[in-house]
């Protein structure tokens, strides 16, 4: 397929002018979904208008994808000095243009201040949030306006493809990816090269290559941010994969709730076609491949491979038994490689920097980096990319900045609804595929939900089982009926109707559901329950035996009370209580009628004297 066309394909890429020099002035402003919600597009418009007004229209403004530090949006990075400005408002723009862009001066109030040392930090790489990260895949977002393919070229985009087509046989590509030790980033952690090899050798034509962008875990948005922010990296990875397995047809399955991802991917595919990188005779070789976007309707189960195939085929998203693997019979019963978005985005990196470089990062069984979304009760909400093997502590405290309000860490939920909760005693756990599995959780797609001492672990398990109950496709009995019954029992426990023997019943059901379910959704559905029982059994027991919710969350098991020592009788709580549950004379200690109280928490919020407590 290749060999004699190497010069040709390199020449085509060389003709694409490199866009940015090291001294070039430009502003990267985050236009990811999070920052857009903060109003970053208005800030961008204001910036462009102001640049024109101050005669600096030659300064380029890049509306980039997610820059990761979502807590501090809208954010911008001003090159070449690389000043990192956070929480930028439209009103800041004239000053930014005049001082920073015009004269290279930093504006102190927009810079990040270290929460402990109180030192002002100038550049992205100085921030504790970014410092320990290794943003090999995700870091490129800051250099690219995803609607411009030239930006991707400027950071060596499609060079990996050119190299592959010019210098490597499909077998060599597979062996390089194998040597790198790339494992699937979507959940299971299956070695990518093994899949590729299987499809390459499988009988049957045509062969399909698919990117799974059906990210559905609550709180997870790394794939979204990759598709939005660097769509070409996913596309380039897929083209390389297609060349390796011998496929001419690819799909990107992306949920329709990700409109910006759909838009940016569509633009990127068109641009790639226009530049001879997709379609017939890619880069002048005899290799042809094209990609089609398939929009999913948002069912969680459609992230499961066989349900995803059914959905692309136009049928209801239901899984089927996979005793014959997708590698042999996948989409339309043809050999199919299905990899997650982040997995594909790693492929160009492996080709460009080499398998040895990739394999030098990470742990024995898990190579490279992984992007995690840090959400929940954490100071620095956002996306972090770290080498595999980074400890939970480093992620949550060094990068995440610890728990909001200085509260006590309780658990971190990893791996989405199919994952589990990890307690404080395991904070030193190096995060990789195998270690997470050992403690009863999983990598999943990389969601991390941080919980503090105000989270009830039974309630957390109840929440996830409720989610899974709603998202079960309903095909097989253990998942459809079993998850529903588990969810009902958990609801009972949280409502004070738990019975002796419920914990054991949940454990028995979990084992049978895991064994008996048709697909991985049901197979892993008991994980949130099993992991919380394993690490927080006493909380279950407190709910069932003592009718007590130690975290003060489950409304049926708590009461609101007033501390007579602290109450000044100011009467503020009386005014905010919607159900008139609080009574008392002015300047005398008030009382709460727990029959009327709905435990909404408004009184606690309103009390300046911390006189109201939950028991």
């Amino acid at each position, binding site marked *: 397929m290749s060999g004699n066309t190497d010069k040709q394909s390199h020449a085509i890429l060389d003709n694409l002018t490199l866009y940015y020099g090291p001294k070039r002035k430009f502003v990267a402003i985050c236009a990811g979904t999070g920052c857009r919600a903060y109003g970053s597009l208005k800030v961008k418009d204001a910036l462009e208008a102001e640049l024109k007004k101050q005669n600096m229209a030659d300064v380029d403004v890049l509306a980039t994808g997610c820059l990761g530090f979502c807590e501090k949006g809208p954010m911008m990075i001003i090159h070449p000095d690389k000043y990192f400005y956070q929480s930028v408002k439209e009103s800041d723009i004239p000053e930014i243009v005049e001082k920073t862009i015009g004269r290279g001066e930093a504006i102190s109030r927009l810079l990040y201040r270290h929460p402990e040392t109180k030192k002002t930090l100038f550049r992205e790489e100085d921030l504790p949030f970014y410092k320990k990260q290794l943003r090999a895949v995700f870091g490129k977002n800051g250099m690219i306006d995803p609607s411009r393919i030239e930006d991707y070229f400027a950071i060596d985009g499609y060079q990996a493809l050119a190299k592959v087509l010019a210098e490597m046989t499909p077998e060599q590509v597979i062996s390089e990816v194998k040597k790198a030790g790339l494992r699937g980033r979507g959940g299971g952690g299956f070695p990518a090269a093994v899949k590729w090899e299987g499809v390459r050798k499988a009988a049957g034509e045509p062969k399909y290559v698919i990117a799974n962008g059906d990210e559905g875990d609550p709180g997870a948005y790394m794939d979204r941010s990759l598709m939005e922010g660097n769509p070409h990296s996913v596309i380039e990875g897929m083209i390389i994969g297609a060349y390796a397995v011998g496929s001419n047809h690819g799909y990107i399955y992306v949920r329709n709730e990700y409109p910006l991802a759909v838009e940016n991917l569509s633009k990127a595919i068109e641009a790639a076609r226009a530049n001879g990188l997709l379609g017939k005779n890619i880069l002048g070789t005899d290799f042809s491949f094209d990609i089609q976007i398939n929009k999913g309707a948002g*069912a969680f*189960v459609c992230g499961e491979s066989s349900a995803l195939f059914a959905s692309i085929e136009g049928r*209801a998203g239901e899984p*089927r*038994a996979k*005793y014959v693997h997708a590698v042999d019979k996948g989409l339309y019963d043809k050999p199919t490689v299905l990899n997650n978005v982040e997995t594909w985005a790693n492929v160009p990196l492996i080709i460009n920097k080499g398998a040895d470089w990739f394999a030098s990062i990470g742990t024995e069984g898990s190579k490279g980096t992984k992007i995690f979304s840090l959400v929940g009760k954490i100071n620095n909400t956002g996306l972090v990319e770290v080498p595999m093997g980074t400890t939970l502590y480093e992620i949550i405290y060094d990068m995440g900045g610890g728990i909001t309000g200085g509260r006590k860490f309780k658990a971190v939920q990893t791996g989405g609804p199919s994952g589990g909760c990890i307690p404080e005693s395991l904070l030193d756990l190096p995060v990789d595929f195998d270690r997470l599995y050992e403690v009863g959780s999983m990598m999943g797609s990389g969601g991390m939900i941080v919980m503090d001492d105000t989270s009830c672990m039974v309630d957390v398990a109840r929440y996830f089982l409720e989610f899974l*109950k*709603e*998202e*079960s*496709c*309903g*095909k*097989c*009995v*253990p998942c*459809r*009926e*079993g998850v*529903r*019954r588990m969810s*009902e*029992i958990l609801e009972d426990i949280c409502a004070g109707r738990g*019975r002796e*023997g*419920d914990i054991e*019943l949940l454990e*028995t*059901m979990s*084992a*049978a*559901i895991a*064994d*008996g*379910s*048709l697909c991985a959704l049901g197979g892993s559905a008991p994980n949130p329950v099993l992991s919380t029982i394993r690490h927080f059994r006493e909380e279950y027991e407190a709910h069932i035996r003592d009718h007590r919710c130690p975290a003060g969350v489950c409304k049926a098991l708590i009461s609101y009370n007033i501390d007579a020592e602290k109450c000044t009788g100011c009467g503020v709580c009386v005014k905010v209580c919607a159900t008139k549950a609080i009574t008392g004379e002015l300047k005398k200690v008030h009382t709460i009628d727990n029959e009327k109280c709905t435990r909404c928490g408004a009184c606690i919020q309103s009390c300046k004297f911390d006189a109201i407590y939950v028991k």
Partner: protein
Amino acid sequence: MVNMIIDGKNVTARKDTMLLEAIRGAGISVPTLCAHESVSRSGACRLCVVEIKKGNRTRIVTSCLYGVEEGLIVNTKSERVLNVRRLVMELLLARCPESDVLQKMAEDMGIEAQTRYAVDTDKGKCILCRSCVRVCEEVVGVSAIGLFSRGSYKEVGTPYHEPSDACIGCGACVYVCPTGHIEMTSTGETRKIWGRTFKMQACTKCGKYFAPVDQLKFISKKTGTSIDELAVCTECR
């Protein structure tokens, strides 16, 4: 032919057949609810699970969908297997408390209802095995009924629960339904099913009502046989 060990017995089975057939062929009984002989397999009920051992690895598979393999060691009654079957039966008993078929089956398996589950009152006897949907699509070829909604809200029926023009009133769905959930009532002259009343054809020879007119029209269109010829019942033909 392939050789396997099933519950300690040496069993040979024809290549490209399913484990379920091999197990039953060896005289070992395996409960099933969704594996009807006239339709494709779906693996929905999970009752036919067995434990297989290949090398050092054991796993639970549905025998109705797992192809026979040389050297496979199969356990049809391991603890894990029985736990799955017990769970499935308990869940189905709670879903369809009225079903005598399920009660009898549970009794034969020595399984009692799990009293911790709240009993459903709105599901009838439908266990969502989808045999009806499959027979309507694969055998009859009209797809008048299908599945809609997701998870525990999933239901079988005609689109929007409205009488379906596609239905020919053949009653194949009733025939394959393992629990007797689907209602079909007949007055002789008419038959009522899925909310639609069908006119029945009287045999032009013996006068007995024997099939819905719509069904005969459908067969005529499909096979090219004239309606007159089809209007004679099978006994008089």
